[in-house]
């Protein structure tokens, strides 16, 4: 008499796993072992004796490190439980992390990247032993050169910001080579370019000038003209910007930069909306970078490793990090490491090899038509989701009203906030109760009460609908049951967390060791000793 099952409610009744798992140190039981290392053989001991006792004074560790002692399965279970307490992109309609292109990372690529011939391959083996991976690196360099329009590509860096650093380091070396380093001390960026453009330029010793948008949301070209001078070393910009708005005068920006002798650096971490549509070099840029973990489908690894690709025009090729993989006339691959003008080694060896393999496989699975379908679909998805979101009372998309966006949109809940006092952050926490990740924006919040959605090409129409339905529901709750939103999360692993201690040096607990020292064995609510 129980069947049929009633129809599911409109919104998913989500609850995150809650294992209430202790910190790993609390699981320790004296004498338990997780793994046993290979032991010193009798023949070795017979020849060398007790090497530990023979260490010079002070070199032998007095007491073993206070690591926990756990059996192997307990370690496994602990970390599997933590993994279940982590949403991750595979389980999530992960359109809420705008700017980061949370697309599908195909499983076949993980399997290819774990090929046994890669795991134990040492980077200093004879090149004849590494022709397979060298060919993949070389082919990836060439494919990314075509996609960007640049002449050469380096794949050394481990993340997007590391790649931006390599861009500014090459620009710096270029001007040193021309004797203009003393003169060119400024870098110009825009507020809706990723903050790492500003931050890496500053770290390289430049003064940073930031251009804000004009009334329509396009980067203010008049302010830009005023900022340009013989002191300008480079412009470092994202386009489309983090608003999803494409600067239609980008070629003019590049020309203006060139007219004062500066270089133009294009942050293409996220090129997802323009693959096969338009290319960095065709807009005149001298240097660009891609994130393989955004545009090219490699997983984000809880925050890395990603992988960066630096594309350069001919005049910057000599400054690329070394080595570069090259193909000889006989079809063999080798490393070009004799590059006197190179900025040098920016990272160990030849880049994040597993992610280069994944990106290679991703591009090969799609081909030219597939990449264009990715871009067009990501843009279609974005404009579709925008239409859905803008139907929610209290949500808006500031700037360029009525115009389309490329791959993402920076929205605002300002109207909802004015009406209810519920902030964008609070909406994000509540959205997690429905199994959805949601992000506001980089700082500063130029758009008030911001949120940034980027659907990519990976989600179906019904999944985009579900995401929009969740936002609509939370906005409704903000009006009708604001306390439910304010006291969220309710369906998560943990409850509302008190973050005040994290900013106080007397009270912050940066490690279990520091926590024990400051608080004894008491609970986190007790006072510092």
């Amino acid at each position, binding site marked *: 008499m129980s069947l049929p099952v009633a129809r599911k409610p409109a919104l998913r009744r989500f609850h995150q796993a809650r294992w209430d798992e202790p910190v790993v140190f609390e699981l320790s039981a004296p004498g338990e072992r*997780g*793994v046993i*290392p*290979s032991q010193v053989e009798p023949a070795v001991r017979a020849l*060398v004796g007790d090497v*530990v006792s023979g260490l*010079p004074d002070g*070199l032998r560790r*007095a007491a073993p490190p206070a690591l*926990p*002692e*756990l059996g192997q399965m307990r*370690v496994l279970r602990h970390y*599997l439980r933590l*993994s*279940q*307490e*982590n949403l*991750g992109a*595979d389980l999530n309609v992960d359109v809420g992390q705008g700017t980061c292109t949370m697309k599908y990372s195909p499983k*076949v690529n993980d399997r*290819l990247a774990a*090929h046994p*011939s890669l795991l*134990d*391959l*040492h980077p*200093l083996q004879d090149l004849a032993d590494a022709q397979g991976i060298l060919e993949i690196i070389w082919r990836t360099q060439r*494919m990314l050169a075509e996609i960007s329009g640049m002449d050469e590509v380096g794949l050394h860096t481990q993340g997007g910001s590391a790649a931006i650093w390599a861009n500014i*380091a090459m620009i710096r070396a270029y001007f040193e080579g021309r004797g203009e380093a003393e003169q060119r001390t400024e870098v110009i960026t825009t507020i809706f370019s990723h903050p790492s453009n500003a931050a890496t330029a500053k770290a390289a010793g430049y003064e940073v000038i930031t251009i804000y948008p004009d009334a329509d949301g396009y980067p203010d070209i008049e302010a830009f003209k005023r900022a340009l001078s013989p002191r300008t070393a480079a412009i470092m910009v994202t386009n489309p910007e983090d608003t999803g*708005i494409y600067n239609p005068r980008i070629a003019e920006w590049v020309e203006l930069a060139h007219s004062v002798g500066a270089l133009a650096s294009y942050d293409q971490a996220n090129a997802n909306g323009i693959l096969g549509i338009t290319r960095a070099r065709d*807009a005149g840029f001298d240097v660009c970078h891609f994130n393989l973990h955004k545009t090219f489908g490699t997983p*984000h*690894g*809880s925050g890395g*490793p990603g992988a960066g690709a630096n594309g350069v025009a001919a005049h910057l090729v000599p400054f690329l990090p070394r080595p570069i993989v090259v193909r000889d006339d006989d079809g063999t691959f080798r490393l070009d490491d004799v590059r006197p003008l190179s900025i040098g080694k*920016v*990272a*160990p060896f030849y880049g994040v*090899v597993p992610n280069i393999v994944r990106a290679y496989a991703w591009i*090969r*699975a*799609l*081909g030219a*038509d597939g990449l*264009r379908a*990715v871009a067009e679909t990501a843009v*279609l998805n974005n404009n*579709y989701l925008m239409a859905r979101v803008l139907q929610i009372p209290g949500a808006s998309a500031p700037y360029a009203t009525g115009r*389309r966006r490329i791959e993402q949109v920076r929205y605002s809940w300002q109207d909802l906030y004015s009406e209810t006092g519920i902030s964008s952050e609070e909406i994000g926490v509540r959205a997690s109760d429905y199994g959805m990740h949601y992000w506001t924006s*980089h*700082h500063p919040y130029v758009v008030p009460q911001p949120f940034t959605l980027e659907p990519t090409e990976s*989600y179906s129409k019904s999944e985009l609908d579900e995401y929009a339905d969740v936002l609509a529901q939370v906005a409704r709750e903000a009006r009708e049951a604001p306390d439910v939103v304010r006291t969220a999360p309710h369906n998560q692993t943990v*409850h509302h967390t008190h*973050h005040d201690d*994290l900013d106080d040096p007397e009270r*912050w607990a940066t490690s*279990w060791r*520091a926590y024990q020292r400051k608080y004894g064995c008491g*609970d986190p609510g007790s006072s510092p000793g």
Partner: protein
Amino acid sequence: MSPMSAPYAHPYVPNSAPEARAAMLAAVGVTSVDEFYADVPDALRLHRPLDLPPALVAEQDLARHVTGLLDRNRPLAPGRSFLGAGTYHHHVPAVVDEVIGRSEFLTAYAGEPYEDHGRFQALFEYESLMAELLAMDVVTVPTYDSFQAASTALAMAGRITGRRTVLVASEVLPDRRSRVHDFVRPYLDLVDVPPRDAIADLPALLAVLDESVAAVWVEPPSHTGAIETRLAEVAEAAHAVGAIVVVSTDPICYGVLTPPASHGADIVCGDLQSLGLHAYYGGAHGGFLAVHDDPRFVMELPSRIFGLAATDVPGEYGFGDVAYERTSFAVREEGKEWVGTAAALWGIAAGVYLALQGPQGMAELGETILARTRYAQQRLQGIPGVRLGDDAVHFREFTIELSGVSPASVVERLRPLGIAPGVPLDDQRLLICVTETNTSDDIDALAAAVAAILEEDHR
């Protein structure tokens, strides 16, 4: 074939299905995707398809193609590689690969402490396990690699002291030095104080150590695997003039060796690859940074630090960002250097590795590596024409000096035997790396092969 008229939906692009596409275009009120690109001027459009190799849309075809390329790699048999110089062959426990292969960790990114509680806890535990190994209270979420870690550590010393000079007291890995140099050169000068017999030359160091020095940079094990025996003296002298002691190292040795903080190191940094990551053709490196719980140092760290926090529920651990306002995420170019996607998954791996090893495992592992390193040194130095590069204590790596034959030729002649004996450093020295994956049989085979070459040449 235009993408709009593809006969099938690509498996990675569900809305490339014609039905979905038509429905969504209608819902948005446009007739063509092209309308979305109205801001991209025609002059900037690519009016041709990208020139890329044909798509391998069928998964089977893709896998066969990529596997075919990778099958051309020829890794050495286990134990037969004595190659190190920055990337090391250590055993990777199966549980480490299992955990970091979990899709929840592998595919996560920037989730907040609520929906991504698991990665916050796993990375807090990584920080905490490293903190015990290093005897320091603050370890950050990993940075890219040891190159970046050392660059940042020295840059921090410059910012804290306001001084320009870095004394380099060890023979540091040359590639790491290259990166550090290019990173810090606007505000720091690296000055080499060449070591004597592979350890710090204390008198030479004292002669140049004054109040212009921001940091003394020590690297144990050094490029050639030497352990620094005079770190405590170096630190005392450095601190006397207000300089900061930066140690770049490999954490795998601290189950058995005294951690640098106990000898006075202020900032300790290095690579995580040894702790549970495969060699991966040099493509699996993560950097760690550790300091004491002193806000002067903590506030100069660019990377995120996940800290423990209370929640509304007694007995429940929450997590969050420690001192977020110092980061470029918070304040752009006013932050300390920058923070971004780096190597978090490798940090989770290193945490799992240390939880598996425990105190006993790290101690035994350290002893095995020390003992087999010493064993290899003794087996090789007994061969006529071979002598050890120096008399220092070595961990994992050491050099031999060859007479009568070049290191490059030894490498070439051992290739047919499937043995990679080491990395030639110059015309005389060969850098040999011995880990727990090289057994006494492997080392015996290496020694026999080297002896045979020298004997053959002598004849």
